């Protein structure tokens, strides 16, 4: 099925994706693009879990269920984050992180 593709290829691909997300997280200033970088990071971790599960422990299902729960948590996180972002936009009319520096409620 996966003949000719070592597990290291999957792990290196996930590493590159993860650090691309880290780069975006550090350089972006818009809250939504920061959220998109976080999505990249979560996805690369999922690839790692599934590759480990399929290559090293194909008799178990831990990696698959962990990825399933990571996806569910990511969906919840995005829903709350976007509610917060829209609330911030209502209050400050911007979602640039450098202009939003007040936590007064």
């Amino acid at each position, binding site marked *: 099925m996966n003949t000719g593709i070592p597990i290291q290829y999957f792990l290196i691909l996930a590493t590159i994706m993860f650090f*691309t997300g880290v780069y975006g997280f550090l350089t972006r200033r*818009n809250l939504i693009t920061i959220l*998109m970088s976080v*999505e990249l990071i979560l996805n690369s971790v999922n690839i790692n879990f599934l590759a480990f599960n399929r290559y090293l422990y194909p008799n178990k299902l831990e990696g698959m*269920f962990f990825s399933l729960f990571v996806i569910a948590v990511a969906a919840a996180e995005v829903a709350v984050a976007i509610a917060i972002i829209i*609330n911030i936009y209502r209050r400050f009319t911007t979602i640039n992180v450098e202009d939003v520096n007040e936590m007064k409620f």
Partner: protein
Amino acid sequence: MASNQIMFILFAAMIIVFSVLTVTSRKILRAAVYLLFVLVSTSGLYFMLNYQFLAAVQLTLYAGGIVVLIIFSILLTSHISQKFESSGWKKNVFSAIAAITGAILSIITILDYKFSATTEAAKEVDMRLIGKSLLSVDYDGYVLPFEVISVLLLATMVAAIVIAKKSGPAKTQSPTLNQE
């Protein structure tokens, strides 16, 4: 070269190119569409690893749900034609140095490590097995995280409504949004 290797190279190239474009694109809507391409290629990788259910979940939840939410909030909060000014070159350079250093260290570690697979027979992942594992309390059961996730989703729904609803009389809200 076997066909699955060609498929893997295709998916890997798509993931790398589009994730770099996602974090460097100056137009926010384009960045969201590139993110969609990354997520779809990831689900292709899941299909290659023979996890069909998870690939379907990835397509429907990530590509169908989360990207639509992100695009929706982009349309609510920014002008489509607006371009970001690039953040200072110092920030870019140092972030790139941090990311590349981390990536190189991780890749060296991965290449050094000797992975040893188990010798037991592989389990066929079908829908029946997934459903039984999710609701079983045995050794291989996942009913506790399943219940915790359901409580989390309920809390998320309540939280999203509470956060996003207008609180009392409009105090400092922008005049453009009050007419809805």
